[in-house]
């Protein structure tokens, strides 16, 4: 296996979504290829650091403000829909549209 082949499989390897045979081949490559070993480990760390970073958390005060705004707008929408029920009838359009 070449390093470029290893890289192509890296995402499936890190996500553990590959067949045991390919996984064994990749692990055999990692045994002797230091560069791929380092790239694999540091990519794994990259994911873990972002996952645990709590980057862009929603502060409580902002959360409360956003909730109030959303619910107030939903109530407005509901009042308008109740006033003209034909507009609120379930639309047969697909959810993917």
């Amino acid at each position: 296996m070449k390093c470029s082949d290893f890289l192509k499989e890296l995402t499936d390897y890190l996500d553990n979504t590959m067949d045991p045979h390919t996984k064994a081949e990749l692990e055999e490559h990692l045994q002797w290829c230091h560069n791929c070993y380092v790239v694999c480990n540091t990519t794994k760390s990259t994911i873990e650091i972002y996952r645990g970073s709590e980057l862009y958390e929603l502060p409580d005060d902002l959360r409360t403000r956003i909730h109030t705004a959303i619910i107030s707008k939903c109530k407005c929408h509901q009042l308008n829909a109740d006033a003209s029920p034909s507009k609120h009838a379930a639309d047969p359009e697909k959810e993917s549209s």
Partner: protein
Amino acid sequence: MEAIENKGQEAPSEETILVEAARSGDIGAFESLVRRYDRNVFRIAQHITQNREDAEDVVQDAFLKAYQNLGQFQGQSKFYTWLVRIAVNEALMRLRRRRPERMVSIDEDVKTEEDSMPREIADWSPNPEQQYTQAELKDILGKTIQGLPPSFRTVFVLRDVEGLSTEETAAALELSVPAVKSRLLRARLQLRERLNKYFKRRDGDTRP
């Protein structure tokens, strides 16, 4: 993220019950859905827009749009995946408004394979993030992900930060599974490359 599956004839999940109640006009039920997913939507929105005000607006608009269109949600996908799709579209629309000079698209796939090939192979210190204060680390991670193309960071945040499966990410972004995997690989490798300068082992660091 709370993973809730609908399989065969199993009892409806709590989420399904909330969605049904909200669809019948129960605003309290919809509020529960907002509380369940608002943090996720905010994180996704801020990762994509890289702007806090836009992210706030995206959260509001995405939930309002979801409420207004609950009649169209037929339960073929999870409510959360459907909500994420709405939020991503809103976020990309905001980004386009701020950067009208640039084409911003989730289909953006202009880089060559070489762009993600590792250039610097350096081992990192053990627990490299602990070299920095929490504020410094957030600054580094924020600046680093900001440099990725929007289509790459969108896939990265859905898959690796929010923990959606590859299939759910593909459904939310209306991309194929191979396209998600390709962007995810390149996003991960580009982030790794950019973080090297902050996290690589320094001379004199003899820890294993």
